[in-house]
């Protein structure tokens, strides 16, 4: 039997309706908050992209100091931009903020290759022909001396490659190598005198590119970096030899020292700069974008030859370059070891020694080549090496320091984002 208690039933129905209304209001509130947040996020994302576009087209000197401004002179479009040199590349940071929300991104930018300046091989005209022998392959355009390129029989090797020798356009080179960007080189050389903090006894250090660079100084004490993981906005400096052990894990960091020794088996992604020498052991792997560079200003008085050397079976993706401001004295030497693979660009202001079975997927610019046999030295000889422009990724971006860089910049690597 149902009791005829109308008031009780009405109160229960009213409660049910009230609960439904409350849940409806709650759902609407959260939906509105979420959709507003999504709208703000989209607006921030557009502002962030606008900032990235501004950095990609800005002059090199623009945004060196962090700049905050309103993008469209409105209230909700604040943007902070910064661009700073990071070794041979540039690192940019963009922050877009609106009310309490902030979106940020940091990334590396580099230059596209200028096709009018690009060459697989550039040897300046110093009245000396370029001689090739063995299974030498040159694929791509080449700037060659007036004396030309010729096949030779040397060290029991007859030339066995393509009859054209250079599979690509042959052009006449000028008397000098196209120069590197000296302004950027000067800036880089300042880091050799930088002072920093003492290296902490941590196993792992990570520094964000949104903050200040962590500079660690080893001073005059020869040090070996081993069993360490260093990642991000970190610069290592030493006034003497710095040894990088194969157990060290380096990612995106910079190293400045007079002499750098990388032990065999090292794997990482870093930029190494030295005034005297960089010695890389066997089977090392430098991931893109890495760089090895000798920068020798006129202040350095030592009489020995600055040198970059890679031992057998190593690979590097990025750049290798040598620069000496003084024209007199021993010019730097770059030695690429047997069966090494370089994906990128080699610029040697002095001499470049390519040992047998070296593969360069990219381009080479050098004043002269050197071939060393057991008994003698040959100048401007290429034996059993492969210089192949098609081995370079179509997405490869070069450092603005190189003469093949165009003004157009692109994003090379995303570093941090939220």
């Amino acid at each position: 039997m149902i009791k005829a208690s109308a008031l009780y039933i009405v109160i229960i129905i009213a409660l049910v309706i009230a609960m439904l209304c409350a849940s409806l209001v709650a759902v609407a509130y959260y939906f509105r908050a979420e959709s507003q947040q999504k709208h703000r996020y989209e607006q921030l994302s557009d502002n962030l992209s606008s900032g990235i576009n501004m950095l990609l087209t800005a002059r090199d000197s623009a945004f060196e100091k962090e700049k905050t401004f309103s993008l469209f002179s409105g209230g909700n479009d604040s943007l902070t931009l910064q661009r700073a040199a990071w070794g041979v590349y540039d690192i940019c940071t963009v922050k877009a903020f609106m009310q309490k929300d902030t979106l940020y991104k940091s990334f590396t930018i580099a230059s596209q290759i200028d096709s009018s300046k690009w060459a697989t091989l550039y040897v300046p005209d110093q009245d000396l022909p370029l001689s090739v022998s063995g299974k030498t392959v040159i694929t791509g355009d080449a700037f060659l001396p007036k004396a030309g390129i010729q096949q030779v029989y040397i060290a029991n090797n007859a030339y066995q490659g393509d009859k054209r020798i250079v599979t690509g356009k042959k052009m006449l080179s000028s008397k000098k190598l196209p120069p590197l960007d000296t302004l950027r080189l000067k800036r880089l050389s300042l880091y050799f005198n930088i002072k920093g903090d003492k290296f902490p006894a941590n196993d792992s250090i990570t520094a964000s590119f949104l903050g200040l660079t962590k500079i660690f100084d080893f001073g005059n004490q020869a040090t070996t970096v081993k069993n360490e993981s260093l990642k991000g906005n970190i610069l290592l400096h030493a006034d003497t030899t710095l040894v990088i052990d194969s157990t060290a894990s380096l990612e995106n960091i910079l190293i400045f020292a007079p002499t750098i020794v990388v032990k065999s088996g090292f794997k990482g992604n870093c930029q190494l700069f030295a005034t005297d020498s960089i010695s890389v052991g066997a089977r090392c792997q430098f991931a893109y974008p890495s760089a090895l560079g000798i920068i020798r200003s006129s202040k350095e008085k030592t009489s020995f030859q600055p040198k970059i050397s890679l031992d057998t079976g190593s690979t590097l993706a990025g750049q290798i370059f040598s620069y000496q401001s003084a024209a007199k004295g021993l010019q730097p030497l770059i030695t690429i070891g047997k069966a090494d693979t370089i994906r990128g660009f080699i610029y040697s202001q002095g001499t470049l020694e390519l040992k047998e079975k070296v593969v360069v997927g990219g381009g080479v610019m050098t004043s002269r080549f050197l071939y060393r046999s057991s008994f003698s030295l040959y100048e401007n000889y290429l034996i059993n090496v492969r210089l192949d422009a098609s081995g370079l990724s179509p997405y490869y971006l070069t450092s603005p320091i190189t003469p093949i860089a165009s003004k157009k910049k692109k994003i090379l690597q995303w570093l941090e984002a939220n």
Partner: protein
Amino acid sequence: MAGSELKIGTKVPGSTIIEVVISMIIILVVFSIAMMIYSNVTRSSLSAQKVKASAILREKLNYAEHNATGADETMSVGDFQVEQQIDPYSDTASHLLKVHLTAWDNNHQKVAELQKIIIRP
């Protein structure tokens, strides 16, 4: 009651007229409040029209990023009039363009708006 015999003298439970009137008033009040809340919620929520207009503007922006000619134009897309304004961002940055897209409905009310700095294609 159905299925049982009603005997004279027994009490049948029932609501008084006052109870019923009060119940009806409460139900009416509760329902009217509920309807008010419902209409407010549906009116204030993001309309499908706005979402659609935003999607159209985003598509136009993507197109402008790759094919911007620098010309202003007004086009009709579905129920909306889309106004596209492309200007140089500043005198110093010649490679940059400011794209301003606005969607208007049939009553010439602004439905959605987008602004972005793009690289001149």
